[in-house]
């Protein structure tokens, strides 16, 4: 399964890079979102794959054997929420950018100054 997920991470990164290189500013935002997904998945997969053993302590003593690593999950959890904030900010910028410049093409912007 690691192999499949590695391919998935690679494809997500590829999509992110391709979208970041576009001239349309909205596609740039999509690239940012892709980048977030790809990185979250990268950390998740690199932290080890454990099925069906969420990181909750069972019983009064707290059984930990075979449990999924909680640290990458904590990192990703914050990353997801920050990603939402950043994406929302970028989307608003794009919106305002278009209202002011009347274009979504980066190249036109640099030609008009």
């Amino acid at each position, binding site marked *: 399964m*690691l*192999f*499949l*997920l*590695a*391919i*998935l*991470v*690679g*494809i*997500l*990164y*590829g*999509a992110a*890079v*391709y979208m*970041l*290189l*576009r*001239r*349309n500013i909205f596609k740039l935002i*999509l690239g940012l979102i*892709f980048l977030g*997904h*790809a990185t*979250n*998945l*990268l950390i*998740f997969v690199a932290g080890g*794959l*454990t099925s069906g053993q*969420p*990181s*909750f*302590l069972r019983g009064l003593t*707290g059984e*930990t054997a075979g449990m*999924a*690593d*909680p640290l990458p*999950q*904590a990192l*990703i*959890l*914050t990353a*997801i*929420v*920050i990603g*939402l904030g950043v994406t*929302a*900010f970028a*989307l608003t910028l*794009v919106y*305002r950018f*278009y*209202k*002011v410049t009347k274009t*979504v*093409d*980066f190249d036109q912007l640099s030609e008009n100054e």
Partner: protein
Amino acid sequence: MTAGLFIFILLLVATVAPFLRRYLGNYAGWIYAIWPFTGFLYYLSLLPSINDGLIITETYAWLPALGINFTFYVDGFGMLFSLLVLGIGSFIMVYAGYYMRPYPMKGRFLGYLLLFMTAMQGIVVSGNLLTMFVFWELTSVSSYLLIGYYHEKPEARASALQAFLITGLGGLALLGGFVLLSIPYGSYDIAYILSEPNIIKDSNLYLPALILILIGAFTKSAQFPFHFWLPGAMTAPSPVSAFLHSATMVKAGIFLLARLNPVLGGTEIWTYTLSITGVTTMFVGAWISITQTDLKRILAYTTVSALGTLVLLLGTGTEYAVNAAIIFLLVHALYKGTLFMMAGNIEKKTGTRDITQLGGLFKYMPFAAVIMIMALVSMAGVPPMLGFLGKELIYEASAAAPKAHYFILTLGFLTNVIMVFLSLRLAIDIFWGKEPPYSKIPKEPSVSLIIGPFFLVLFSLLLGLFPSYMANPLTSKAITAISPDNDAIVLKLWHGFNLVLGLSVLTIISGFITFRFRHLILPFIDRINIKYFRREFTRVFFSVLDAFLGFTKVKTKTLQHGYHRFYLMTIFVFASILVWIMIWRADPVVIELDFSTMPLNLVAVVILIIAATITTVASDSRVVSLISLGVIGFGITIIFIAYSGVDLAITMIMVETLMVILAMAVVFHLPKYKPFSSTGARMRDTLVATMVGSFFMVLVLQAGTSAMEIPISEFFKEVSYTQAYGRNIVNVILVDFRALDTLGEISVISIAALGIYAILKLKPSKIKES
């Protein structure tokens, strides 16, 4: 008092001087001269003990771990220079305080002068190479401010910039030279370096260190071909010229060469480089000065010539040469300071400093005339002034030079003839020549303006009359400091009949003859100069500067093109190349394709995500690509669930929903997709994307197969309940173990939210206006 404390207080005086000028009125110059003069008396009081062999060293910690300290080192040479800097400096303060009265911002001007004096005094008593460098750069900066004092004039700004760039670039070379010099010693301490001269000479860093230090010294001391900044700097007010270009700024390079003479000197390359540069500068400076008519420019070119003489003498390095260098340094400082101040006085009283517009001044200012003529006598090297002794020693040294002494002697002779000629010309043309119509009748300069020249000339005369009582004690330790193998020669006014005396007489006679037939000779020299020396160095300098600025402009435009995607592409391509090299060198990854560990439902989810990704990227419709984006998010949610990320899955589902809603709300306002890029551009971007994506794939595979240390989360698992009383370890990490990180994170999202709020509440019209 100590040397360090003195400099510190001088710096304080310089700092407050501009603000106090208003309250001190016209006596500011006198008051500001008090502290430098105190320093002068302090160093004078040290004279007997220094002549007994005392050397003062003081250290104030700066960066002791790196061996960089404010170390001060006062020996005979440092003391002689301190006396010059502070003595002449005191007179200059008095002179400048009066001279600058009609000009605006005089308080600031006096402050700059004091700052410069601090820097110069710092150089001459530095005991650490880096301390010296700091003060060295400070002289460049403060001289920039002084030369550009009339900043509303474009030519003043240009000369200031020129002087600053040349001395500043030289300073950069000097720093490199100092660092190289210190490497074999492992120390920046000058006293230590002077005590072990052979360490650097045996090191293969000798040549690079020497070259860099010589560049620094030659640029500062206006040696050919860097000499042109000095005449350019004559746009500065006269007090600046009198101080910077007689005894201080330009002598800093000489000081450095002399200071390092025991360490760097005595080798073939030192002798050749210094002799050739010195002799060239000496003659070129003198030659150009013949045809100048601006009084200050004449003095500037003779200064260039004198600096060349000093470098030549240091390069020659014999006993006579070292003696001659120190004596001539003193001679030149005394007469050139006087002449520059007098040039300022004459300009102030007559409104011009063009010698063809001057004449018959003797009857208006006889006292000033006598002083200036005595200074000119010293310049011409005629007894009984100290200049005579200086010139005698130079002839002795030239005649005894180890290499090419006929050549050096000839050029030295010609230079001195030119000096005699110039002295006669300045004295006779200005004070007796045909009197032009003056707009107002010139008067004697007032006390403040004449006191400096008076005392400097007086010293020159006394030192010349009683050399063994006065000049010898002043200079003997300076001579042994810069050349420990040589002794000071007992100076005498009368040497008896010998070759040198004959040369002196011949020089004076030739000077008179030249002056007598100047109407024949001058046009001839003028023609030569116009024909061969027409291309001015200043113009070359500024065209080089313009070319350099043009080059940087083109370079910046090429590198900073303003296209975000090419910036990103550069980063992506370089990063992936680097990572690919790493992967290439690492051990190969063994991939076990075991289909039994691949649950069919998850395989389907992965394939779905991949399909949705391709749809998002390739779709022409914005709505379709957004929906596909949602599919990707939910697919990833399923992967999180399958591999034990419960909290992640819940968060992801909600965030993904909100993100798609947000994007939909915004995309509603944006225009439809239009193809912007050509097929070629798409192919290229696909290639870059493949490079980056593939290396991440390999990275994940390597991370999954490599064995790791016990992760830190084992600790979290252990203490999560026993110490933090929580069973949901992910949550405990977020709110307890790493709570500070979470605090930072919620601050970030709050700021993002406020940013969005602000962007949307500001109307476009307002943005446009601002």
